[in-house]
């Protein structure tokens, strides 16, 4: 009965590969997010997405693309992986945007070799 789940939990891959991380929420929320926690432990927003719009942090390379098959899912596709993509990626969800509480998944630890 996990509220926000992510798969896989760990992902080890070679540079240049393409990979996807899946996120599902069963909270009935209408907005989902992807965050990246880098080696310095900063959690930074990558994308926020609801039915109407996708907001992309301008610092995110276009090799990263979120895809939402429905309101309960927001998957993250990464093309041509680079060493610097190694990080922990967290999915989150909320009702609406702005002054709302976001609920986070357990994270996916990505290591690019």
């Amino acid at each position, binding site marked *: 009965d996990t509220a*926000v789940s992510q798969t896989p939990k760990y992902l080890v891959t070679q540079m240049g590969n393409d990979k996807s991380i899946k996120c599902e929420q069963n909270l009935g929320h209408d907005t989902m*997010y992807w*965050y990246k926690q880098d080696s*310095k*432990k*900063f*959690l*930074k*927003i990558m994308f*926020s997405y*609801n039915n109407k*719009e996708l*907001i992309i*942090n301008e610092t995110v390379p276009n090799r990263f693309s979120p895809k939402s098959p429905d309101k309960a899912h927001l998957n993250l596709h990464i093309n041509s992986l680079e060493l610097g993509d190694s990080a922990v990626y*967290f999915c*989150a969800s909320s009702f609406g*945007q*702005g*002054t*709302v*509480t*976001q*609920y*986070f*998944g*357990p*994270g996916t*630890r990505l290591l690019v070799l």
Partner: protein
Amino acid sequence: DQQVKQNSPSLSVQEGRISILNCDYTNSMFDYFLWYKKYPAEGPTFLISISSIKDKNEDGRFTVFLNKSAKHLSLHIVPSQPGDSAVYFCAASVAGGADGLTFGKGTHLIIQP
């Protein structure tokens, strides 16, 4: 340019005493503030929040104080318990904003027996 700052990377407190975690912000547009608790290899867990129209919010052992003029908030945990040992993140957002949460770097709270 860190808009949310947690200047203490770690804090050690004796069990039963009060833990006070501090957070400063620079963006005057922020009007919703949250504290998250994070255990290793898990996602951030929502703890408590406060709107900018309030200066205090309490939930059991946790109280958040907001000083808008000083752009400062703090989380008080009393009494501190061993299970409170974790990394605490301060986060902020803008009303109606779709930019997600802006996080501080976190403070590692260690509760000593």
